[in-house]
């Protein structure tokens, strides 16, 4: 979509009445942009408006759901590393470790 200045948009708004809805949505978008604030490091953050749902930047303080996510990550790491360690140490793929130095429990 091409971006127009508010003045041009307003001028067109008076001449083309059947385009009114698309115009107002574009003006809305222009207004929305002022809500985007540039932070020091160049990333943009949006000021949360009344009914906005929180993004993952601020996780909800639900202890159980976080515990479950933690368990998921932990199990995932365990399974990946156990399988990896198994393949590397038990198959003759000694290229990673010198076998005399690598022991499995």
């Amino acid at each position, binding site marked *: 979509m091409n971006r127009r200045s508010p003045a041009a948009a307003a001028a067109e708004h008076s001449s083309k009445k059947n385009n009114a809805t698309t115009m107002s949505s574009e003006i809305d978008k222009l207004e929305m942009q002022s809500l985007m604030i540039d932070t020091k*490091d160049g*990333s943009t*953050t949006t000021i949360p408006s009344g009914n906005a749902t929180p*993004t*993952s*930047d601020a*996780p909800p*303080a639900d*202890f159980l759901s976080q515990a479950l*996510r*933690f368990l998921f*990550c*932990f199990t*995932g*790491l*365990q*399974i*990946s*590393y*156990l*399988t*990896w360690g198994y*393949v*590397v140490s*038990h*198959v*003759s*793929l*000694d*290229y*990673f*470790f*010198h076998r*005399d*130095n*690598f*022991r499995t*429990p």
Partner: protein
Amino acid sequence: MQELIMTTTFEPTPGAPDGRFPSAAFCVFSNRFLAIIVAVIAVRVRRGAVFANNVAPLVAFAPCALSNTMSSWSQYASLRYVSFPVQTVFKSSKIIPVMMMGKLLKGTSYPLGKYVEAFFITVGVAVFSIASKSSDADTSTEIIGLLFMCMYVFFDCFTSQWQDKVYATYGRANVDPYQMMLGVNSTAILMTSAGLIVSGDIPKIIEFFHSNPTVLQYNVITAITSASGQLFIYTTIKEFGPIVFTVIMTTRQMISICISAILFGHAMTMKALAGAVIVFGVLFYQIRNDYLARQNRSRS
């Protein structure tokens, strides 16, 4: 089954007379290669384009790709010169260096209590690991080995803290683990390829694959587990930060030994048990504090 796999040896080739796979670099290369394929597909599906919709530029991932390569290189280099207990102590002592690296890279300051807790976890894991693993025919520790170990810890801590910094700088909502995976592996594969070309391993590898086509399947399995491991690493760092990640990685083996001891009724030595009690005590204490703090926050 295990005996069968353990006795698997490959057809010797002139480039690899002992029947062992001739190149470590190639295994790293194949891991990186599969990781890139997985990441490209995932990023394409989730973001609509492979590179166009990335908030974080590729360069942002280069430092941790470099430090990642350096940390694994120095770890393998150290193995010849460091005794097993020294290795164990270094590997379990990463939590405090990670905290210090966080202060250095991101200016995060941790209260003294956190350092004390980290210290106790370190001691517990070290005691447990030394007590529960046997070490036969040990290598003696040399100064160069300690130097390699220090390098390994330094680069490892840098890697996880830098990844967290990328998430923090570009917004956790804007960078997902797949993009992290793509960024890190694209840079790392360049270094690995350069290493492969410089070392002149390529003809040896082709020759080895030619006489041992089955070795490819092991390569694929390690690449798959490496890719899934990476995804969980990036997810854990994103969701819980580098310190929790490091705690998981240092207590990982201890926890699996404990679980199997409970499940199969293996006996554990008193020393190992004491180590485990310290670690689980501190972890439980931390979780309890975190829980209470959350409750207070939601109440006020």
